[in-house]
């Protein structure tokens, strides 16, 4: 059951042991594959529906002799805004990621390296934001953004998320692991704090920056509640709002709906495969936020 099962039981002959081990390996792969299939079932179901052509009564499995891949092309023609939604999501997610990296690095640098009065107070001001759930801020934020005339705009989707207490906390913890002597030596050599941050501290902190970047990008790409409030006109939708609106539109064409959902999932799935380690680190640390 747990981690040490592939050892052959003692007292067996050499050959039966090898056959036994082989059978055990086959059995293990069979179990793992079955479970993997169950985990992936909803995704396979989505793919199956996407490949069945514009039918109103889809079946669970597609007709494998004539798979209809055209839905992935067709969906861009049927919903001309899809490209725009993808662009919107990329612009917003990249801008928020970059913004959080900058604001978090600056604040974390001050907290981790500089000595100044009332530092503890500032630390807890930043940390305190983790205790405030977005539900408790969203109504005044919505009213403020509306008053600014920022509905249906990139600034409305981006600016409220440019700083994060979590990002500051994560980077501060990492910066603290880098010896302070390095800073003092650099200052003695006439290096200013800004240059130390840019040319020494940040290059040394690449793992933490990557973690924050991957985590923030994923979260922003997948945002739902805020864009739902801020976006009125179809061309300002982000992908998440787009695919759900696609769903509630009058003509439900399953293959196109599933094709658009799969297309929209691709960037984050690719991010998972490429940056799994960073993502996992960010998510487990980010869970602090709740």
């Amino acid at each position, binding site marked *: 059951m747990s981690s040490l099962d592939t050892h052959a039981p003692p007292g067996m002959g050499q050959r039966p042991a090898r056959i036994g081990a082989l059978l055990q390996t086959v059995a293990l792969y069979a179990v793992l594959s079955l479970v993997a299939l169950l*985990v992936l079932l909803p995704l396979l179901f989505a793919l199956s529906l996407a490949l069945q052509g514009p039918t109103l009564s889809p079946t669970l499995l597609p007709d494998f002799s004539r798979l209809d891949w055209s839905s992935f092309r067709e969906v861009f023609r049927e919903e001309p805004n899809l490209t725009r939604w993808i662009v919107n999501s990329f612009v917003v997610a990249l801008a928020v990621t970059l913004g959080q990296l900058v*604001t978090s690095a600056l604040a974390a640098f001050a907290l981790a390296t500089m000595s100044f009065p009332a530092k503890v107070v500032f630390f807890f001001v930043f940390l305190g934001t983790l205790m405030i759930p977005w*539900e*408790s801020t969203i109504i005044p934020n919505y009213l403020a953004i509306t008053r600014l005339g920022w509905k249906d705009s990139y600034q409305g989707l981006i600016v409220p998320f440019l*700083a994060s207490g979590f990002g500051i906390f994560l980077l501060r913890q990492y910066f603290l692991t880098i010896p302070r002597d390095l800073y003092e030596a650099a200052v003695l050599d006439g290096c200013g704090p800004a240059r130390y941050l840019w040319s020494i501290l940040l290059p040394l902190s690449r793992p933490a920056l990557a973690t924050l970047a991957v985590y923030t990008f994923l979260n922003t790409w997948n945002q739902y509640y805020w864009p739902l409030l801020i976006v009125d006109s179809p061309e300002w939708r982000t992908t998440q709002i787009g695919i759900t609106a696609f769903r509630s539109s009058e003509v439900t064409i399953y293959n196109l709906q599933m094709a658009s959902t799969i297309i929209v999932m691709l960037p984050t799935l690719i991010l998972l495969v490429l940056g799994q380690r960073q993502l996992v680190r960010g998510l487990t640390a980010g869970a602090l936020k709740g």
Partner: protein
Amino acid sequence: MSKQAWSNEPAQPGEMLAMPTAARQAAARPPRQWWEFGRALLYMSPALLLLLAFTYIPFLRSIWLSFFVTNPQGDTVRFNDVRYYTRILNLDGSGRTEYLRSILTTVYFSLLVVPLGIVFALALALLATLRVRAIAVFRTIFTSSIAISVASASVIWALIYSPNTRATQWLIDLLHLNANSLLQHPATALFAVAFMTTWTSLGFNFIVTLAGLQAIPHDIYESARIDGANNWALFRYITLPLLTPTLLFLILISTIQSFQAFTQFNVLIGNEGPANATDVFVFAIFTAFWKDNRYGFASAMSVVLFLILFVLTFIQYRLLDRRVHYQ
């Protein structure tokens, strides 16, 4: 985390006399201290201003708004005392308990999501510790749902539960339900959303549990095995106890997350559900805020939610502190 992290801090003003030259110099030259303060403030100012503008001020404004009747533009019209709070918590003696019931629905939802999530995650994590060559592939598959947004998952599961695809028809027949879809029956709707939620959080729960399993030192198993312990004994007396801090952490995180779940309810159901069966508290806030434009009332609800989550988060931090001491 805090105690250790602060150990390399410079001394606080009160301790300065005990400190050697550097601190005494700083005390002798207050202007320099202020200059350092200003410089640090400059570095922190972008984050500080943004967090003030979009977290602290809106939060305080939510509390402010919760004591007022508001107009559709969100301006305060008339002081309302704590009437919204007494209305939500049924302290006004009116006997209208729909908001308390909504909180209760949220609790039911957590009671479904959390145990299901833990059991599935534990099973997957134990499988992922098997020693076979392609285990990395399976781990990636088990993790995959962390890359899938709740909105995408909701669109897919809406079709899984849709009467047109008939994917869950067998379950409806099995349970003899008088409904076209699991989502349309009061007895199954909340469970259907909870099951879908378990799937979306599977990747995260799996990865946390796996990390917890991998942190258990291997030689404990080796020596127990030499003493003749079988697999079940290893799991029951080594794995489970040593995994308890991880599982407790996961239980609290999942509870907090399930209290905040909104997307799946809005996409899969979009209203209070059959016989209000899926009217969780966050969705009730959305209704008051978005559909009814009752900003003051919705703010009071969001403050109540904040208090609930605050208690849960507080317990979580205490627990995390303890977890650090274990290691």
